[in-house]
Protein backbone atom coordinates (compact mmCIF):
# COMPACT_ATOMS: atom_id res chain seq x y z
CA UNK A 1 0.00 0.00 0.00
CA UNK A 2 2.73 2.40 1.01
CA UNK A 3 4.84 1.62 -2.01
CA UNK A 4 1.90 2.13 -4.28
CA UNK A 5 0.99 5.45 -2.74
CA UNK A 6 4.50 6.66 -3.39
CA UNK A 7 4.33 5.64 -7.00
CA UNK A 8 0.98 7.30 -7.36
CA UNK A 9 2.21 10.52 -5.88
CA UNK A 10 5.40 10.43 -7.90
CA UNK A 11 3.36 10.11 -11.06
CA UNK A 12 0.98 12.84 -10.03
CA UNK A 13 3.89 15.14 -9.27
CA UNK A 14 5.38 14.33 -12.60
CA UNK A 15 2.15 15.08 -14.38
CA UNK A 16 1.62 18.35 -12.62
CA UNK A 17 5.23 19.32 -13.36
CA UNK A 18 4.65 18.71 -17.03
CA UNK A 19 1.47 20.73 -16.73
CA UNK A 20 3.14 23.79 -15.44
CA UNK A 21 4.92 24.36 -18.68
CA UNK A 22 1.67 24.97 -20.53
CA UNK A 23 -0.46 26.62 -17.96
CA UNK A 24 -1.62 29.13 -20.51
CA UNK A 25 -3.96 26.99 -22.66
CA UNK A 26 -5.53 24.02 -20.97
CA UNK A 27 -7.43 21.51 -23.00
CA UNK A 28 -9.48 18.91 -21.16
CA UNK A 29 -9.23 15.33 -22.36
CA UNK A 30 -11.63 12.51 -21.59
CA UNK A 31 -11.08 8.95 -22.66
CA UNK A 32 -13.66 6.43 -21.54
CA UNK A 33 -13.37 2.76 -22.39
CA UNK A 34 -14.98 -0.59 -21.72
CA UNK A 35 -13.65 -3.98 -22.59
CA UNK A 36 -12.46 -7.34 -21.43
CA UNK A 37 -9.55 -8.72 -19.49
CA UNK A 38 -8.41 -11.98 -21.02
CA UNK A 39 -6.11 -14.42 -19.31
CA UNK A 40 -5.48 -17.94 -18.19
CA UNK A 41 -4.56 -19.61 -14.97
CA UNK A 42 -2.45 -22.66 -14.31
CA UNK A 43 -2.82 -24.26 -10.90
CA UNK A 44 -2.45 -27.47 -8.94
CA UNK A 45 -5.89 -28.95 -8.65
CA UNK A 46 -6.07 -30.31 -5.13
CA UNK A 47 -9.26 -32.18 -5.88
CA UNK A 48 -7.55 -34.09 -8.65
CA UNK A 49 -4.31 -35.36 -7.17
CA UNK A 50 -2.60 -32.00 -7.49
CA UNK A 51 -2.43 -32.34 -11.25
CA UNK A 52 -1.76 -29.11 -13.02
CA UNK A 53 -4.78 -27.68 -14.72
CA UNK A 54 -5.24 -24.73 -17.03
CA UNK A 55 -8.38 -22.65 -17.24
CA UNK A 56 -9.52 -19.54 -19.04
CA UNK A 57 -10.15 -16.38 -17.10
CA UNK A 58 -12.09 -13.54 -18.67
CA UNK A 59 -13.59 -10.58 -16.95
CA UNK A 60 -15.01 -7.20 -17.67
CA UNK A 61 -13.34 -3.85 -17.24
CA UNK A 62 -14.35 -0.20 -17.57
CA UNK A 63 -12.35 2.93 -17.02
CA UNK A 64 -12.32 6.61 -17.61
CA UNK A 65 -9.29 8.82 -18.08
CA UNK A 66 -9.68 12.51 -17.30
CA UNK A 67 -6.79 14.81 -17.93
CA UNK A 68 -5.34 17.67 -19.82
CA UNK A 69 -3.52 17.98 -23.09
CA UNK A 70 0.04 18.91 -22.14
CA UNK A 71 1.32 19.37 -25.65
CA UNK A 72 0.30 18.25 -29.10
CA UNK A 73 1.15 14.65 -28.35
CA UNK A 74 0.93 14.13 -24.62
CA UNK A 75 -2.05 14.10 -22.31
CA UNK A 76 -1.79 13.38 -18.59
CA UNK A 77 -4.45 12.74 -16.03
CA UNK A 78 -6.08 10.37 -13.62
CA UNK A 79 -7.64 7.07 -14.57
CA UNK A 80 -10.44 5.60 -12.49
CA UNK A 81 -11.82 2.21 -13.34
CA UNK A 82 -13.66 -0.86 -12.25
CA UNK A 83 -12.50 -4.44 -12.80
CA UNK A 84 -14.90 -7.32 -12.24
CA UNK A 85 -12.51 -10.17 -11.56
CA UNK A 86 -14.45 -13.25 -10.70
CA UNK A 87 -13.37 -13.34 -7.09
CA UNK A 88 -12.66 -9.65 -6.59
CA UNK A 89 -14.20 -6.36 -7.59
CA UNK A 90 -11.37 -3.86 -7.76
CA UNK A 91 -11.32 -0.14 -8.33
CA UNK A 92 -8.01 1.00 -9.73
CA UNK A 93 -7.10 4.65 -9.37
CA UNK A 94 -4.05 5.53 -11.39
CA UNK A 95 -1.98 8.25 -12.94
CA UNK A 96 -2.30 8.02 -16.71
CA UNK A 97 -0.49 9.13 -19.82
CA UNK A 98 -1.72 9.15 -23.43
CA UNK A 99 0.92 9.83 -26.05
CA UNK A 100 0.41 10.05 -29.80
CA UNK A 101 3.02 7.96 -31.57
CA UNK A 102 2.05 9.04 -35.09
CA UNK A 103 1.58 12.60 -36.23
CA UNK A 104 -0.80 12.55 -39.13
CA UNK A 105 -3.71 10.69 -40.57
CA UNK A 106 -7.27 9.88 -39.62
CA UNK A 107 -6.10 6.82 -37.68
CA UNK A 108 -3.53 7.51 -35.04
CA UNK A 109 -1.43 5.10 -33.05
CA UNK A 110 -1.05 6.10 -29.44
CA UNK A 111 0.72 4.76 -26.39
CA UNK A 112 -1.06 4.49 -23.07
CA UNK A 113 0.21 3.89 -19.54
CA UNK A 114 -1.76 3.78 -16.31
CA UNK A 115 -0.04 3.03 -13.04
CA UNK A 116 -1.65 3.09 -9.65
CA UNK A 117 -3.41 1.06 -7.02
CA UNK A 118 -6.49 -1.10 -7.22
CA UNK A 119 -8.72 -0.75 -4.18
CA UNK A 120 -11.22 -3.31 -2.95
CA UNK A 121 -13.68 -0.73 -1.65
CA UNK A 122 -16.67 -2.14 -3.46
CA UNK A 123 -15.79 -5.78 -3.05
CA UNK A 124 -18.07 -7.66 -0.69
CA UNK A 125 -16.25 -10.54 0.97
CA UNK A 126 -17.76 -13.81 2.02
CA UNK A 127 -17.57 -14.39 5.76
CA UNK A 128 -14.04 -15.13 6.85
CA UNK A 129 -12.45 -13.69 3.74
CA UNK A 130 -10.77 -10.34 3.56
CA UNK A 131 -9.73 -9.07 0.17
CA UNK A 132 -7.49 -6.07 -0.24
CA UNK A 133 -6.20 -4.59 -3.44
CA UNK A 134 -2.73 -3.97 -4.76
CA UNK A 135 -0.54 -2.34 -7.34
CA UNK A 136 -1.83 -1.92 -10.86
CA UNK A 137 0.16 -1.37 -14.01
CA UNK A 138 -1.44 -1.10 -17.42
CA UNK A 139 0.78 -0.22 -20.41
CA UNK A 140 -0.18 -0.68 -24.02
CA UNK A 141 -0.95 0.83 -27.40
CA UNK A 142 -4.14 1.88 -29.10
CA UNK A 143 -5.66 3.17 -32.29
CA UNK A 144 -7.70 6.34 -32.44
CA UNK A 145 -10.16 6.92 -35.26
CA UNK A 146 -11.24 10.52 -35.67
CA UNK A 147 -10.16 14.00 -36.53
CA UNK A 148 -7.43 15.86 -34.70
CA UNK A 149 -8.81 17.65 -31.68
CA UNK A 150 -12.32 16.28 -32.16
CA UNK A 151 -14.11 13.27 -30.73
CA UNK A 152 -13.00 9.84 -31.80
CA UNK A 153 -13.31 6.13 -31.28
CA UNK A 154 -10.45 4.18 -29.74
CA UNK A 155 -9.35 0.59 -29.66
CA UNK A 156 -6.68 -0.20 -27.06
CA UNK A 157 -4.56 -3.28 -26.81
CA UNK A 158 -2.83 -3.39 -23.43
CA UNK A 159 -1.31 -5.56 -20.77
CA UNK A 160 -2.77 -5.24 -17.29
CA UNK A 161 -1.09 -6.39 -14.14
CA UNK A 162 -3.11 -6.15 -10.94
CA UNK A 163 -2.06 -7.43 -7.53
CA UNK A 164 -4.35 -8.34 -4.65
CA UNK A 165 -4.13 -9.96 -1.24
CA UNK A 166 -6.73 -12.22 0.33
CA UNK A 167 -6.93 -13.36 3.92
CA UNK A 168 -8.82 -16.61 4.08
CA UNK A 169 -10.33 -18.65 6.87
CA UNK A 170 -8.09 -21.60 7.70
CA UNK A 171 -9.15 -25.07 6.66
CA UNK A 172 -8.87 -28.24 8.68
CA UNK A 173 -5.68 -28.31 10.69
CA UNK A 174 -4.52 -24.93 9.49
CA UNK A 175 -3.92 -21.87 11.57
CA UNK A 176 -3.40 -19.29 8.85
CA UNK A 177 -4.21 -19.06 5.20
CA UNK A 178 -3.70 -16.21 2.79
CA UNK A 179 -3.32 -15.71 -0.91
CA UNK A 180 -1.23 -13.40 -3.00
CA UNK A 181 -2.82 -12.77 -6.39
CA UNK A 182 -1.34 -11.34 -9.52
CA UNK A 183 -3.80 -10.91 -12.34
CA UNK A 184 -1.91 -10.82 -15.63
CA UNK A 185 -4.37 -10.03 -18.35
CA UNK A 186 -4.57 -8.91 -21.91
CA UNK A 187 -6.90 -5.94 -21.77
CA UNK A 188 -8.81 -5.14 -24.98
CA UNK A 189 -10.90 -2.01 -24.79
CA UNK A 190 -13.19 0.01 -27.01
CA UNK A 191 -13.77 3.61 -26.14
CA UNK A 192 -14.54 7.17 -26.89
CA UNK A 193 -12.26 10.13 -26.50
CA UNK A 194 -12.64 13.83 -26.88
Amino acid sequence: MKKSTYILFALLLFTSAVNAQNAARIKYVNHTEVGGLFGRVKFDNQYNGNLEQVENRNSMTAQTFNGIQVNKRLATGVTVGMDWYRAALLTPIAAGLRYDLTKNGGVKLYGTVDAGYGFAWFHDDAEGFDTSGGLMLNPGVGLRFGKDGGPGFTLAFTYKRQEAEVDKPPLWGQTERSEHRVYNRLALRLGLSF
Partner: protein
Amino acid sequence: MNPRLLQLLLIFLAPAFWSCNDQCKETRVTRQFTNVTRSLMELRTQVKSESPRAMEKPGKMYVKGDYLFVNEVKEGIHIIDNSNPASPKFVAFITIPGNGDIAVRNNILYADSYSDLVALDISNPSKAVEVERVKNVFKNGLFDGGSWNLNESIGAINDQNVEYVTETVTVNCEENVNPGSWWGGEIWAVADRAFFGAGAAKSSASPQSSGNSNGQAGSMSRFALHQQFLYTVGQNELNLFDISNAAKPKSFTTVNIGWGIETIFPYENKLFIGSTTGMFIYDNSNPAEPKQLSTFQHGRACDPVVVQDDIAYVTLRTGNACAGAQNQLDLVDVSNPSSPQLIKSYQMENPHGLSIDFPTLYLCEGEHGLKVFDVADKFAVDKHQIAHFKNMDAYDVISLGKTLLLIGKDGFYQYDASNPKDIRMLSKIPVGKAI
Protein backbone atom coordinates in the same frame (compact mmCIF):
# COMPACT_ATOMS: atom_id res chain seq x y z
CA MET B 1 6.73 4.48 -38.64
CA ASN B 2 10.30 5.03 -37.55
CA PRO B 3 12.38 2.34 -35.86
CA ARG B 4 12.24 4.03 -32.47
CA LEU B 5 8.49 3.81 -32.44
CA LEU B 6 8.65 0.16 -33.28
CA GLN B 7 10.96 -0.46 -30.36
CA LEU B 8 8.57 1.35 -28.07
CA LEU B 9 5.73 -0.73 -29.39
CA LEU B 10 7.62 -3.93 -28.68
CA ILE B 11 8.38 -2.88 -25.14
CA PHE B 12 4.72 -2.22 -24.52
CA LEU B 13 3.48 -5.38 -26.10
CA ALA B 14 6.04 -7.90 -24.97
CA PRO B 15 4.70 -8.44 -21.43
CA ALA B 16 1.26 -9.09 -22.79
CA PHE B 17 2.53 -12.10 -24.66
CA TRP B 18 4.81 -13.69 -22.17
CA SER B 19 2.61 -13.65 -19.09
CA CYS B 20 -1.09 -13.47 -19.52
CA ASN B 21 -1.47 -16.07 -16.81
CA ASP B 22 -2.96 -15.12 -13.47
CA GLN B 23 -0.58 -16.15 -10.74
CA CYS B 24 -2.01 -16.91 -7.36
CA LYS B 25 -0.05 -18.34 -4.50
CA GLU B 26 -1.72 -19.47 -1.33
CA THR B 27 0.34 -19.59 1.84
CA ARG B 28 -0.89 -21.87 4.57
CA VAL B 29 0.31 -22.64 8.01
CA THR B 30 -0.70 -26.18 8.88
CA ARG B 31 -0.44 -28.07 12.11
CA GLN B 32 1.46 -31.31 11.94
CA PHE B 33 1.24 -33.87 14.64
CA THR B 34 3.85 -36.37 15.71
CA ASN B 35 3.05 -39.00 18.29
CA VAL B 36 5.27 -39.28 21.32
CA THR B 37 5.10 -41.36 24.45
CA ARG B 38 6.15 -39.69 27.66
CA SER B 39 7.00 -41.51 30.84
CA LEU B 40 5.00 -40.39 33.84
CA MET B 41 7.85 -41.39 36.08
CA GLU B 42 10.05 -38.87 34.33
CA LEU B 43 7.40 -36.17 33.99
CA ARG B 44 6.80 -36.29 37.72
CA THR B 45 10.40 -35.31 38.43
CA GLN B 46 10.31 -32.24 36.23
CA VAL B 47 8.25 -29.77 38.21
CA LYS B 48 10.59 -27.06 39.47
CA SER B 49 10.99 -23.35 39.85
CA GLU B 50 13.42 -21.73 37.47
CA SER B 51 14.71 -18.33 36.54
CA PRO B 52 12.23 -16.16 34.63
CA ARG B 53 12.00 -16.48 30.89
CA ALA B 54 10.23 -14.74 28.04
CA MET B 55 6.67 -15.64 27.03
CA GLU B 56 6.41 -17.64 23.87
CA LYS B 57 2.95 -19.08 23.69
CA PRO B 58 0.92 -17.52 26.46
CA GLY B 59 -2.19 -19.41 27.49
CA LYS B 60 -4.56 -18.65 30.31
CA MET B 61 -3.94 -16.08 32.95
CA TYR B 62 -4.80 -15.99 36.60
CA VAL B 63 -4.60 -13.20 39.16
CA LYS B 64 -4.01 -13.43 42.86
CA GLY B 65 -3.23 -10.32 44.82
CA ASP B 66 -0.23 -8.59 43.37
CA TYR B 67 0.80 -11.60 41.37
CA LEU B 68 -0.11 -12.69 37.90
CA PHE B 69 0.16 -16.24 36.71
CA VAL B 70 0.42 -16.72 32.99
CA ASN B 71 0.40 -20.19 31.56
CA GLU B 72 2.97 -21.06 28.92
CA VAL B 73 1.00 -23.64 26.97
CA LYS B 74 2.13 -27.15 27.91
CA GLU B 75 5.33 -25.83 29.53
CA GLY B 76 4.57 -24.22 32.83
CA ILE B 77 3.67 -20.96 34.52
CA HIS B 78 5.21 -17.49 34.50
CA ILE B 79 4.93 -15.74 37.84
CA ILE B 80 4.78 -11.99 37.42
CA ASP B 81 5.00 -9.38 40.16
CA ASN B 82 2.32 -6.87 39.29
CA SER B 83 2.39 -4.61 42.34
CA ASN B 84 3.02 -1.80 39.89
CA PRO B 85 0.79 -2.48 36.85
CA ALA B 86 2.79 0.05 34.86
CA SER B 87 5.88 -2.10 35.08
CA PRO B 88 5.22 -5.77 35.78
CA LYS B 89 8.27 -7.90 36.55
CA PHE B 90 8.90 -11.56 35.89
CA VAL B 91 9.65 -13.31 39.16
CA ALA B 92 10.10 -16.92 38.18
CA PHE B 93 9.04 -19.62 35.80
CA ILE B 94 7.68 -22.88 37.15
CA THR B 95 8.26 -25.76 34.80
CA ILE B 96 5.20 -27.98 34.79
CA PRO B 97 5.03 -30.32 31.81
CA GLY B 98 1.57 -30.55 30.31
CA ASN B 99 0.19 -27.53 32.13
CA GLY B 100 -2.81 -25.58 30.91
CA ASP B 101 -4.78 -24.39 33.91
CA ILE B 102 -4.15 -22.57 37.13
CA ALA B 103 -5.98 -21.89 40.37
CA VAL B 104 -4.62 -20.35 43.57
CA ARG B 105 -5.98 -20.51 47.09
CA ASN B 106 -4.05 -18.89 49.92
CA ASN B 107 -0.45 -19.81 49.22
CA ILE B 108 -1.17 -22.92 47.27
CA LEU B 109 -1.18 -23.00 43.48
CA TYR B 110 -3.02 -25.82 41.75
CA ALA B 111 -1.96 -26.77 38.28
CA ASP B 112 -2.59 -29.64 35.95
CA SER B 113 0.35 -31.61 34.64
CA TYR B 114 -1.05 -33.99 32.04
CA SER B 115 -2.86 -36.60 34.13
CA ASP B 116 -1.91 -35.20 37.53
CA LEU B 117 -3.05 -32.33 39.68
CA VAL B 118 -0.06 -30.66 41.29
CA ALA B 119 -0.19 -28.42 44.35
CA LEU B 120 2.70 -26.00 44.84
CA ASP B 121 3.51 -23.82 47.79
CA ILE B 122 4.13 -20.31 46.51
CA SER B 123 4.63 -18.47 49.80
CA ASN B 124 7.94 -17.49 48.25
CA PRO B 125 6.94 -16.88 44.64
CA SER B 126 10.48 -17.04 43.39
CA LYS B 127 10.90 -20.50 44.90
CA ALA B 128 7.74 -22.50 44.41
CA VAL B 129 7.85 -25.98 45.89
CA GLU B 130 5.73 -28.99 45.00
CA VAL B 131 3.86 -30.10 48.08
CA GLU B 132 1.31 -32.56 46.80
CA ARG B 133 0.32 -34.45 43.70
CA VAL B 134 -2.93 -36.24 42.93
CA LYS B 135 -2.03 -38.84 40.34
CA ASN B 136 -3.94 -40.10 37.32
CA VAL B 137 -7.03 -37.95 37.75
CA PHE B 138 -7.22 -36.46 34.25
CA LYS B 139 -7.59 -39.05 31.53
CA ASN B 140 -7.12 -37.00 28.38
CA GLY B 141 -6.82 -33.50 27.08
CA LEU B 142 -5.95 -31.17 24.26
CA PHE B 143 -3.11 -28.75 23.74
CA ASP B 144 -2.98 -26.53 20.72
CA GLY B 145 -4.96 -29.09 18.74
CA GLY B 146 -2.82 -32.05 19.76
CA SER B 147 -4.47 -34.52 22.09
CA TRP B 148 -3.00 -36.64 24.84
CA ASN B 149 -4.35 -39.52 26.81
CA LEU B 150 -3.27 -41.44 29.83
CA ASN B 151 -2.09 -45.00 29.50
CA GLU B 152 -2.40 -46.08 33.09
CA SER B 153 -1.24 -49.65 32.60
CA ILE B 154 2.29 -48.66 31.60
CA GLY B 155 2.42 -45.30 33.35
CA ALA B 156 2.76 -43.18 30.25
CA ILE B 157 1.16 -40.32 28.39
CA ASN B 158 0.47 -40.80 24.69
CA ASP B 159 1.04 -37.31 23.50
CA GLN B 160 1.14 -35.45 20.22
CA ASN B 161 3.72 -32.81 19.43
CA VAL B 162 2.45 -30.00 17.28
CA GLU B 163 4.55 -28.36 14.63
CA TYR B 164 3.57 -25.57 12.32
CA VAL B 165 4.48 -26.04 8.70
CA THR B 166 4.25 -23.27 6.16
CA GLU B 167 3.59 -24.26 2.58
CA THR B 168 2.86 -22.35 -0.57
CA VAL B 169 0.78 -23.72 -3.41
CA THR B 170 -0.54 -22.30 -6.64
CA VAL B 171 -4.30 -21.94 -6.65
CA ASN B 172 -6.91 -20.92 -9.15
CA CYS B 173 -7.44 -17.37 -7.88
CA GLU B 174 -11.08 -17.70 -7.06
CA GLU B 175 -11.70 -19.87 -4.10
CA ASN B 176 -14.45 -18.01 -2.31
CA VAL B 177 -16.60 -17.89 -5.41
CA ASN B 178 -17.62 -21.41 -4.59
CA PRO B 179 -19.02 -21.54 -1.08
CA GLY B 180 -18.80 -24.76 0.79
CA SER B 181 -15.19 -25.43 0.08
CA TRP B 182 -14.19 -23.84 3.35
CA TRP B 183 -17.27 -24.27 5.39
CA GLY B 184 -16.47 -27.32 7.42
CA GLY B 185 -12.94 -26.55 8.46
CA GLU B 186 -11.30 -25.48 11.62
CA ILE B 187 -12.20 -28.35 13.81
CA TRP B 188 -8.99 -28.01 15.66
CA ALA B 189 -9.15 -24.34 16.15
CA VAL B 190 -11.21 -24.70 19.24
CA ALA B 191 -8.59 -26.61 21.04
CA ASP B 192 -6.10 -24.01 20.09
CA ARG B 193 -8.24 -21.14 21.13
CA ALA B 194 -9.48 -22.88 24.19
CA PHE B 195 -5.98 -23.20 25.35
CA PHE B 196 -5.09 -19.73 24.44
CA GLY B 197 -7.80 -19.18 26.81
CA ALA B 198 -10.12 -16.38 27.21
CA GLY B 199 -10.59 -15.08 30.54
CA ALA B 200 -13.07 -13.19 32.40
CA ALA B 201 -14.35 -12.96 35.83
CA LYS B 202 -15.23 -10.04 37.85
CA SER B 203 -13.94 -9.55 41.30
CA SER B 204 -17.40 -9.53 42.77
CA ALA B 205 -18.43 -12.36 40.50
CA SER B 206 -15.81 -14.68 41.89
CA PRO B 207 -17.05 -16.57 44.84
CA GLN B 208 -14.95 -15.96 47.89
CA SER B 209 -15.04 -18.47 50.64
CA SER B 210 -14.83 -17.22 54.15
CA GLY B 211 -11.35 -17.31 55.55
CA ASN B 212 -9.78 -18.34 52.31
CA SER B 213 -8.48 -16.09 49.58
CA ASN B 214 -8.84 -17.24 46.05
CA GLY B 215 -7.42 -15.74 42.90
CA GLN B 216 -9.39 -14.87 39.82
CA ALA B 217 -9.59 -16.88 36.67
CA GLY B 218 -10.92 -16.13 33.25
CA SER B 219 -14.07 -17.17 31.46
CA MET B 220 -12.06 -19.82 29.63
CA SER B 221 -10.77 -21.42 32.78
CA ARG B 222 -11.25 -25.11 33.38
CA PHE B 223 -10.51 -24.71 37.09
CA ALA B 224 -12.78 -23.15 39.66
CA LEU B 225 -12.62 -22.81 43.43
CA HIS B 226 -15.70 -22.92 45.64
CA GLN B 227 -15.74 -23.40 49.38
CA GLN B 228 -13.67 -26.45 50.20
CA PHE B 229 -13.59 -27.74 46.65
CA LEU B 230 -11.59 -27.31 43.52
CA TYR B 231 -13.65 -28.04 40.42
CA THR B 232 -11.92 -28.99 37.21
CA VAL B 233 -13.59 -29.82 33.92
CA GLY B 234 -12.13 -32.30 31.46
CA GLN B 235 -13.42 -33.14 28.02
CA ASN B 236 -16.44 -34.92 29.42
CA GLU B 237 -16.32 -34.87 33.18
CA LEU B 238 -16.26 -32.65 36.17
CA ASN B 239 -13.67 -33.53 38.83
CA LEU B 240 -13.99 -32.42 42.41
CA PHE B 241 -11.01 -32.12 44.71
CA ASP B 242 -11.38 -31.68 48.40
CA ILE B 243 -9.07 -28.86 49.44
CA SER B 244 -10.28 -28.30 52.99
CA ASN B 245 -6.60 -28.65 53.73
CA ALA B 246 -5.30 -26.47 50.91
CA ALA B 247 -1.88 -28.07 50.79
CA LYS B 248 -3.34 -31.58 50.61
CA PRO B 249 -5.87 -31.76 47.76
CA LYS B 250 -7.72 -35.05 47.62
CA SER B 251 -9.63 -36.46 44.71
CA PHE B 252 -13.23 -36.39 45.87
CA THR B 253 -15.59 -37.36 43.10
CA THR B 254 -16.18 -37.27 39.36
CA VAL B 255 -19.38 -36.24 37.61
CA ASN B 256 -19.98 -37.10 33.97
CA ILE B 257 -21.34 -34.22 31.96
CA GLY B 258 -21.80 -34.74 28.25
CA TRP B 259 -19.13 -34.08 25.70
CA GLY B 260 -16.91 -31.24 24.61
CA ILE B 261 -16.72 -29.38 27.88
CA GLU B 262 -14.76 -26.20 27.56
CA THR B 263 -15.12 -23.89 30.51
CA ILE B 264 -16.46 -23.57 34.03
CA PHE B 265 -17.67 -20.39 35.67
CA PRO B 266 -18.88 -20.47 39.27
CA TYR B 267 -21.39 -17.81 40.27
CA GLU B 268 -23.18 -17.68 43.56
CA ASN B 269 -24.46 -21.19 44.15
CA LYS B 270 -24.33 -22.23 40.51
CA LEU B 271 -21.79 -23.63 38.17
CA PHE B 272 -22.06 -22.46 34.56
CA ILE B 273 -20.35 -24.93 32.28
CA GLY B 274 -19.67 -24.06 28.67
CA SER B 275 -19.59 -26.92 26.20
CA THR B 276 -19.65 -27.23 22.44
CA THR B 277 -23.35 -28.04 22.50
CA GLY B 278 -24.61 -25.55 25.00
CA MET B 279 -24.37 -24.12 28.45
CA PHE B 280 -25.05 -26.36 31.43
CA ILE B 281 -26.25 -24.92 34.69
CA TYR B 282 -25.48 -26.88 37.83
CA ASP B 283 -26.89 -26.25 41.25
CA ASN B 284 -23.98 -26.11 43.64
CA SER B 285 -25.71 -25.33 46.92
CA ASN B 286 -24.30 -28.61 48.13
CA PRO B 287 -20.73 -28.19 46.84
CA ALA B 288 -19.96 -31.86 47.26
CA GLU B 289 -22.68 -32.87 44.87
CA PRO B 290 -23.40 -30.52 41.96
CA LYS B 291 -26.78 -31.22 40.35
CA GLN B 292 -27.68 -30.41 36.78
CA LEU B 293 -30.54 -27.93 36.59
CA SER B 294 -30.78 -27.21 32.90
CA THR B 295 -29.08 -26.94 29.57
CA PHE B 296 -29.18 -23.92 27.31
CA GLN B 297 -28.86 -25.35 23.82
CA HIS B 298 -27.98 -23.27 20.86
CA GLY B 299 -26.23 -23.81 17.58
CA ARG B 300 -23.38 -26.23 17.72
CA ALA B 301 -20.83 -23.78 18.98
CA CYS B 302 -20.09 -22.59 22.40
CA ASP B 303 -17.58 -20.57 24.21
CA PRO B 304 -16.98 -18.84 27.45
CA VAL B 305 -19.79 -17.71 29.64
CA VAL B 306 -19.78 -15.10 32.37
CA VAL B 307 -22.65 -14.33 34.67
CA GLN B 308 -23.75 -11.34 36.69
CA ASP B 309 -27.09 -10.41 38.16
CA ASP B 310 -29.15 -13.17 36.59
CA ILE B 311 -27.80 -12.54 33.11
CA ALA B 312 -25.37 -14.91 31.46
CA TYR B 313 -23.21 -13.54 28.65
CA VAL B 314 -22.26 -16.29 26.24
CA THR B 315 -20.10 -15.90 23.14
CA LEU B 316 -20.22 -18.16 20.11
CA ARG B 317 -17.86 -18.02 17.21
CA THR B 318 -16.94 -19.79 14.03
CA GLY B 319 -13.82 -21.85 13.94
CA ASN B 320 -15.14 -23.85 16.78
CA ALA B 321 -14.92 -27.58 17.35
CA CYS B 322 -18.51 -27.79 16.35
CA ALA B 323 -17.88 -25.95 13.10
CA GLY B 324 -20.39 -23.39 14.12
CA ALA B 325 -21.50 -20.75 11.70
CA GLN B 326 -22.29 -18.02 14.18
CA ASN B 327 -20.27 -15.18 15.57
CA GLN B 328 -22.40 -13.76 18.27
CA LEU B 329 -22.92 -12.68 21.83
CA ASP B 330 -25.98 -14.12 23.56
CA LEU B 331 -27.56 -12.61 26.63
CA VAL B 332 -29.41 -15.26 28.58
CA ASP B 333 -31.80 -14.70 31.45
CA VAL B 334 -30.86 -17.16 34.18
CA SER B 335 -33.08 -15.80 36.95
CA ASN B 336 -34.78 -19.17 36.81
CA PRO B 337 -31.77 -21.47 36.44
CA SER B 338 -34.00 -24.43 35.62
CA SER B 339 -35.18 -22.70 32.49
CA PRO B 340 -32.71 -20.21 30.99
CA GLN B 341 -34.28 -17.92 28.40
CA LEU B 342 -32.61 -16.05 25.58
CA ILE B 343 -32.78 -12.27 25.98
CA LYS B 344 -31.13 -11.25 22.75
CA SER B 345 -28.38 -12.24 20.32
CA TYR B 346 -25.88 -9.74 18.95
CA GLN B 347 -23.71 -10.22 15.89
CA MET B 348 -19.98 -10.07 16.59
CA GLU B 349 -16.89 -10.56 14.47
CA ASN B 350 -15.00 -13.36 16.19
CA PRO B 351 -15.70 -13.24 19.91
CA HIS B 352 -13.42 -15.02 22.36
CA GLY B 353 -13.13 -14.33 26.06
CA LEU B 354 -15.21 -11.79 27.89
CA SER B 355 -15.46 -10.11 31.23
CA ILE B 356 -18.29 -8.27 32.91
CA ASP B 357 -17.96 -5.38 35.32
CA PHE B 358 -21.58 -4.28 35.21
CA PRO B 359 -22.55 -2.21 33.32
CA THR B 360 -19.32 -2.56 31.33
CA LEU B 361 -18.72 -5.64 29.23
CA TYR B 362 -15.27 -6.31 27.81
CA LEU B 363 -15.26 -8.61 24.85
CA CYS B 364 -12.24 -10.00 23.00
CA GLU B 365 -12.70 -10.19 19.25
CA GLY B 366 -9.59 -12.21 18.43
CA GLU B 367 -7.60 -10.46 15.75
CA HIS B 368 -10.23 -7.73 15.62
CA GLY B 369 -9.15 -6.44 19.00
CA LEU B 370 -11.12 -5.59 22.10
CA LYS B 371 -14.61 -4.14 22.32
CA VAL B 372 -16.13 -2.40 25.30
CA PHE B 373 -19.92 -2.25 25.69
CA ASP B 374 -22.32 -0.66 28.09
CA VAL B 375 -24.85 -3.42 28.77
CA ALA B 376 -27.21 -1.47 31.01
CA ASP B 377 -29.85 -1.72 28.30
CA LYS B 378 -29.88 -5.44 27.61
CA PHE B 379 -31.90 -5.07 24.43
CA ALA B 380 -29.57 -2.51 22.85
CA VAL B 381 -26.07 -3.62 23.70
CA ASP B 382 -24.90 -3.11 20.13
CA LYS B 383 -25.96 0.52 20.23
CA HIS B 384 -23.85 1.20 23.29
CA GLN B 385 -20.37 0.29 22.16
CA ILE B 386 -18.06 2.48 24.20
CA ALA B 387 -14.76 1.68 22.56
CA HIS B 388 -13.09 -0.62 20.08
CA PHE B 389 -9.35 -1.18 20.28
CA LYS B 390 -7.95 -2.48 17.03
CA ASN B 391 -4.49 -3.50 15.87
CA MET B 392 -4.10 -6.07 18.57
CA ASP B 393 -4.88 -9.68 19.14
CA ALA B 394 -7.24 -10.23 22.07
CA TYR B 395 -8.09 -13.70 23.38
CA ASP B 396 -8.53 -13.25 27.04
CA VAL B 397 -9.57 -10.47 29.35
CA ILE B 398 -9.97 -10.10 33.11
CA SER B 399 -11.53 -7.00 34.56
CA LEU B 400 -10.32 -6.15 38.05
CA GLY B 401 -12.43 -3.06 38.38
CA LYS B 402 -9.77 -0.43 37.93
CA THR B 403 -7.37 -2.47 35.88
CA LEU B 404 -7.99 -4.61 32.90
CA LEU B 405 -5.76 -7.52 32.01
CA LEU B 406 -5.69 -8.71 28.46
CA ILE B 407 -3.82 -11.46 26.73
CA GLY B 408 -3.41 -12.26 23.08
CA LYS B 409 -1.03 -13.99 20.73
CA ASP B 410 1.30 -11.01 20.70
CA GLY B 411 1.57 -10.41 24.40
CA PHE B 412 0.08 -9.42 27.69
CA TYR B 413 -1.46 -5.97 28.19
CA GLN B 414 -2.66 -4.00 31.19
CA TYR B 415 -5.04 -1.11 30.98
CA ASP B 416 -6.27 1.53 33.35
CA ALA B 417 -10.04 1.09 33.15
CA SER B 418 -11.10 3.34 36.00
CA ASN B 419 -13.03 5.27 33.39
CA PRO B 420 -14.45 2.76 30.89
CA LYS B 421 -14.94 5.54 28.36
CA ASP B 422 -11.26 6.35 28.38
CA ILE B 423 -9.20 3.19 28.73
CA ARG B 424 -5.45 3.75 28.73
CA MET B 425 -2.68 1.22 28.31
CA LEU B 426 -0.40 0.89 31.31
CA SER B 427 2.04 -1.72 30.13
CA LYS B 428 2.67 -4.45 27.64
CA ILE B 429 4.76 -7.57 27.86
CA PRO B 430 5.41 -8.61 24.30
CA VAL B 431 5.80 -12.24 23.40
CA GLY B 432 9.39 -13.38 23.05
CA LYS B 433 10.87 -10.64 25.18
CA ALA B 434 11.99 -10.72 28.77
CA ILE B 435 11.53 -7.63 30.90
